[in-house]
């Protein structure tokens, strides 16, 4: 599944970043690196963007961007 499908409170592990160039680089630079675990913290009042926590860092991104983060959901 991909990150944009996750609901607030959901946990997952990043499997792969499926976009390159600018967006892929930016996602990696901000710490969304395959292998790491993240938690969806909340959605914005108008549902988009979303906020995730990864390794103690809080990142916000649009759902259209989160679509390129392939994840595997799990509990905690």
């Amino acid at each position: 599944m991909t990150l944009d499908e996750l609901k607030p409170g959901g946990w997952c592990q990043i499997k792969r970043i499926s976009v390159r160039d600018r967006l892929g680089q930016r996602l990696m630079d901000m710490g969304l690196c395959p292998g790491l675990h993240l938690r969806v913290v909340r959605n914005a009042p108008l549902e988009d963007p979303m906020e995730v926590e990864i390794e103690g860092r809080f990142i916000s991104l649009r759902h259209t961007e989160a679509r390129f983060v392939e994840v595997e959901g799990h509990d905690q």
Partner: protein
Amino acid sequence: MTNKKILVALAGQPNCGKSTVFNALTGASQHVANYPGVTVEKMSGSYRYNGRTVEVVDLPGTYSLTSYSPEERVSRDFILHEKPSLVVNVTDASNLKRSLYLTFQLLEMEIPLVLNLNMTDMAEQVGVVIDTEGIAEHLGVAVVPTSMKNGQGKKALFNAVAAAAEGGRKAAVRIDYGVMEPFLRDIEKRLADETTMPAFYPARWVAIKLMEGDGETRNLVRADSPRAEHLLRFTERLRGDFESRFNEAPELFIAHRRYREADDIERRYITPGRQAVGTLSDRIDRVVCHRLLGPIILVGVIWILYYLSIVQGYHITNYTWPLLAKIRSLAEAVTPQPGFIEIPMLRALVLWFVDSVNALLNYIPILFILFGLIAILEDSGYMPRMAFIMDRFFSRYGLHGQSTLPMVLGGIYVGGCAVPGVMACKGIPDERSRLATILIIPMLNCLAKVPLYVLLINIYFAAHKAWAMFFISTISLLIALPVSRILTLTILKDKETAPFVMEMPPYHLPTMRGVLGRATERVWLFIRKITTIVAAVAVVLFVLLQFPGINDERQVYYDAKKDKAIADFLSQIEGTPFADDLQGENLMAMILYWKEYKNARMLTKGPEAMSTLNATYKARNPVFFRIVQPGKDKVAKQANRAFKNLYRKRQDLLREIRKERIDNSFLGRLGRWPEPVTRFAGFNWRVNVALLSAFAAKESSVATLGALYEPEEEGEALEARMARGEAGFTSLHALTLMLFMVLYPPCLATSIAVKLQTGSVKWMLFSMAYPMALGLVVAVAVFSGGSALGLTGLQAMIAFYGLALALTVATGLLKEKERYS
């Protein structure tokens, strides 16, 4: 060698306490400028240590060193081309692992480096223990722990900088890129064989960047070698090979390896602290980003910002304006004095110049408060939250979450100012959204447009004032949003966009020093840049308004009128003791004395100050004073009446001459020239001239109308004068004029702000041309359409509002083309 200046670059990720380190190192000796060609601020400062001057440049905080954002580009270019003696890499000791991602990229640039572990107090608090010697050994660089907030470790950092500057470069660690190494070796070899690049740049770094597919590095290669394209095709082929063999994009693989390396260092040298659960920032965000509370708090914050800067700021201008008025009176005093109807050219020019510059300097209190508040918003960490909440709405129109603040400042409802609005666009990372925001801000309700609205509404919509005001306050947004959507789909289509992905940093209490310092620097930057350009344009406008002036025949006519007025006056006071005192030159002296006294009285408050003022003027000229303040003195009263009459006649004459001069001027002709077109919008040449003069500052439109519609009786309101002067004017005329004003091109100051923020004259010209064209189209459509359908102004207003609303909704629902494939 020892006397050579040391140049230090300070690099680090955002929120690692870098500015605290910079302040601690350089103290008060700071200087802000812009990097050439971009709107990124360049902060620099210096200090002396052991007899040597160390210059410190604070590079913008970046997570990485790609060429995708201007901040990262300037940081990288600075290190590559300015070749600093060393880099101090500031990191957050409580989360060193993620900071190392940037550190590795700096090390790959093979520049001497000092690793500064800052915020050690925070790290200790959560129980993080770092083996600094282990890391120093592993990386081959000096590692200096500091807690600059508490002033700890400053001396050690000074020493490390001095030592690293002496020591030159050490062999530092290399990230092992594993399966990519053969690819890198191939590129390095080709670089050495076919280019001169290795002489100027670290060859391995160039190879890594080419494997990443970095655009700027490809340009460096092109600049170096005639065989560049050949080489670049080779590297592209390698990238393709790599991806098909290992099923991972090379740039992602490289980033991945860097994290793995950071992981390795963490495992070896860092004892992790307690996992922070439910940090304070997270708890605050539960409220601030809440579904319902979030937007309410946002509106509250915006209201406070607006209230303090625009409303209270304008109050302060009441106190600062007299200072500027003093400058003007000084200019009045030192330039050649006016005659009865002759205004010396030099005097006119100097006063015009001072007025133009003053009009801008008047904004300073507002800007100072505003920049201070923006600094607070930036430092506290609220800005990203604001963007988080608003992004969904604005992105529908091609704007960005971070367009919120600029648009509020520009005047989303009523009474903003486009200058700070445009200046605040600096932070928007997405080039396309940034340009769109800059281009639509001038359409919002700047305070200076309001006088014209009020004037027209009072005359032509008197029965529906509140509705008309509501219409004009909200229509600007209903026009600006669709325009932005259309611009981003057409002209701005190919502009670079940036991912929204951003950090929501922990909240942070801003410091007084930081906020005041930044506000002062930015105001100063504004003054320096703006005043010079304004000065130049003011002179051009002056020429357009002054020349060719009054012809000889008319001059004779005015001279006759003047002589008659003076003769009448002298005959009225004949026989009084004043008759002798007001002959020839003395009469002019009396006129100036009268004017000065009246002006001084206006600026004087309280009975005590007033009596001091009276005493001063009495001492200066007791005879004149008797006429000015006749009291119960009968003879003096007679002279006072006669003089007032003369004074009024002179004012009338001056106004008449001014009007004729404007009529005749180049600007006046410019107003007549488009009349064949503007006729369809209902604008005659007088309105055209008023609109043209509004370019200097919007409030000028009303002032020019004031000069063009002369009063019949003293003190007649402009409303009445205009209603009489334009008997054929209907509410439909007024509506089109107001709509044209909404779409009016940015004023002079804003145009310059646009040039500063876009870094291009072309965009400035475009920002002036497209609203003009659009405004004309809208005005013609509304006026001609309304006339054809026989609509009243009010009916046309309602119809237009409905259309604009429908257009806003429709463009908001337009589906955006897929950004990423």
